[in-house]
């Protein structure tokens, strides 16, 4: 079984890394295929669950989460402020009020858009060569039974032992502080959390944008709240009363309500992240308690901290901006066809699951009908239900479909050996990779049109899991019906269980009041689901 896998991932069959005009003969077929069409950009074959706009310049998560709501709330509140409060305050106070409001608003919107549309630090998946090399290194004992790669590797970082986990999806040992986001299906460097409010992961590259966003939003909220309160107070002067003021300016009441409920959670979140920045921690590490010694191990400090608040802040917020590693707008080199084919096959397999489901249904039906002719009709209905259920299942089922579909419709002789002799493979994505040489000579034409749907890249049409999507829908309903309290939930999503945080974080985190405790429970699970 191990041998079959190594045969499949044969480095010799794979191409050279740098582009050249001439190629070895076995790639001639694929080369012609590639020359026939316009060169594709890398974002078009990106394996993660992201969507791309403006020809790869903008990247967002698959689900936009509540980003429209966030933008809407900010826009509505600020527009109401400018229309209803600013004229009065301009006349009675100073021109600086709308000026400051304007500047803050611009800062908030720009940093929000940057947080949402920037690559958070996605690590590209390992090439098949690398994956094979890692497996060879681990399993060099030469045993005949297939052992999965061990899941952890220990390294010493600043005299402290840190465990690196192996990511089965990305086929590599994750660098320290990297985590795999299940919603985006990517490993993200310095993973903080997946924020539904901005509709993207927050990681190494966009943490500073996120921090700027929440800090400027706190200022904006406090500013608007203060200005609106001043406005109403001025109107209510002279014994005319608050009700009179509210009647004259009803929009102010709306702003007051929104700001009042937002300010606590936003201020709390800003405070929490300021603490994280000062101690060079991520939300993920703080929640898991990686460095707080909760597991009882002594001498577990944060190995990444510079033990100086200023240095920590500077390194996180003002450090050099790392480049995007996924090179979205780069063109696919023709010679990386096997890699493309690998990803295309993964995509094609996902897109063809409907076809495979049908084939599976038919084959199951035929088998059953052969054994129980009277039950054939009832079983066809059962088959269609079964297919629908299978479409909602995880990778394991996809593996089953692939192997079942390959046997009735083989493209070359090789897949037969794969499907029958590697039953213990942990990750069916391995199977997709192992199909490389088998399909290099016969690339799937279905993959080509499926990738050209508008400007978007749908890589996971039917495959797993719909559970986060359903969770998000549940989220959205929650938030839309309880928009007034939505901001408190916002804090809960990020902070999860404050009671947990109380036990871990030092007393420098304000705003985590007991008001957030209740009602946060149902979101703890969701936020934990987002935090891989």
């Amino acid at each position: 079984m191990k041998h079959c896998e190594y045969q499949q991932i044969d480095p010799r069959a794979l191409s050279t890394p740098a582009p050249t005009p001439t190629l070895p003969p076995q790639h001639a077929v694929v080369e012609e295929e590639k020359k026939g069409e316009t060169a594709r950009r890398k974002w078009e074959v990106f394996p993660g669950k992201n969507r791309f706009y403006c020809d790869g310049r903008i990247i967002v998560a698959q689900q936009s989460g509540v980003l429209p709501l966030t933008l809407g709330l900010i826009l509505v509140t600020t527009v109401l402020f400018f229309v209803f409060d600013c004229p009065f305050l301009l006349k009675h106070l100073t021109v600086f009020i709308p000026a400051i409001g304007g500047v803050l608003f611009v800062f908030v919107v720009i940093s929000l858009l940057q947080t949402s549309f920037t690559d958070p630090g996605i690590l590209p998946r390992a090439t098949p060569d690398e994956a094979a090399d890692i497996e060879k290194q681990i399993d060099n004992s030469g045993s005949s039974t297939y052992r999965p790669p061990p899941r952890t590797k220990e390294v010493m970082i600043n005299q402290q032992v840190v465990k690196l986990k192996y990511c089965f999806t990305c086929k590599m040992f994750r660098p320290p502080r990297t985590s795999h986001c299940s919603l985006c299906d990517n490993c993200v460097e310095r993973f903080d959390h997946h924020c539904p409010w901005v509709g993207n992961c927050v990681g190494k590259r966009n943490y500073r944008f996120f921090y700027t966003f929440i800090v400027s939003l706190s200022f904006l909220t406090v500013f608007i709240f203060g200005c609106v309160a001043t406005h109403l107070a001025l109107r209510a002067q002279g014994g005319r009363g608050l009700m009179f003021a509210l009647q004259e300016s009803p929009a102010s009441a709306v702003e007051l309500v929104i700001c009042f409920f937002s300010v606590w959670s936003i201020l709390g979140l800003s405070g929490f992240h300021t603490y994280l920045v000062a101690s060079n921690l991520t939300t993920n590490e703080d929640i898991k308690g990686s460095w707080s010694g909760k597991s009882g191990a002594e001498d577990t400090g944060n190995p990444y901290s510079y033990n100086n608040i200023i240095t920590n802040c500077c390194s996180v917020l003002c450090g050099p901006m790392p480049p995007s590693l996924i090179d979205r707008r780069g063109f696919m080199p023709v010679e990386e066809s096997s890699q493309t084919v690998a990803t295309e096959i993964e995509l094609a397999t996902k897109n063809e699951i409907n076809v495979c489901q049908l084939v599976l249904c038919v084959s199951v039906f035929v088998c059953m009908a052969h054994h129980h002719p009277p039950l054939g009709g009832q079983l066809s209905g059962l088959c269609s239900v079964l297919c629908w259920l299978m479409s909602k299942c995880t990778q394991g089922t996809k593996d089953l479909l692939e192997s079942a579909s390959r046997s009735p419709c083989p493209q070359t002789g090789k897949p037969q050996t794969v499907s029958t002799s590697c039953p213990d493979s942990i990750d069916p994505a391995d199977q997709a990779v192992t199909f490389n040489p088998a399909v290099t000579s016969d690339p799937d034409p279905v993959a080509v049109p499926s990738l050209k749907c508008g400007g978007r890249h749908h890589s996971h049409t039917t495959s797993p899991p719909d559970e986060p999507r359903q969770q998000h829908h549940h989220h959205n309903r929650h938030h839309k019906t309880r928009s007034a309290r939505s901001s408190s939930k916002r804090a809960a999503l990020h902070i999860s269980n404050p009671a947990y945080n109380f036990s871990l974080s030092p007393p420098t985190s304000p705003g985590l009041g007991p008001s957030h405790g209740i009602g946060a429970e149902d979101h703890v699970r969701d936020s934990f689901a987002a935090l891989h």
Partner: protein
Amino acid sequence: MAETHSLQDMRQQAAIAAKVFIQRDYTNGTVCQFQTKFPSELETRIDKQQFEETVRTLNNLYAEAEKLGGSSYLEGCLACLTAYTIFLCMETHYEKVLKKIAKFIQEQNDKIYAPRGLLLTDPIERGLRVVEVTIFEDRSLGR
């Protein structure tokens, strides 16, 4: 590209014998550093000192890219004041150093590695995870 003329010729004749991956070295944290340990597969092809020198220079270049100093703080603060819109127009310090690194690797390939039937791949093409060294079959030695 001019620098791959010799490599192209070689590649037309040579097939890939093996690929060696130099992994990241995390002993100093998350900064981009590669292990300087000399892989055994390259023993017959290149001098150990030469190879370690290449990797060490690469490490120094990456350290320069990620250095926290006056200029990087200035760039960061300026970017913050302009709501990071400056990143849309200006090339960051890191990107400038990456260009330097690309040139360095190209140079090393031309001068040292190509004549020995080896090829270094720029780590940025592998997501800064590994330095990939491709070993070509050495026809001259009758292998």
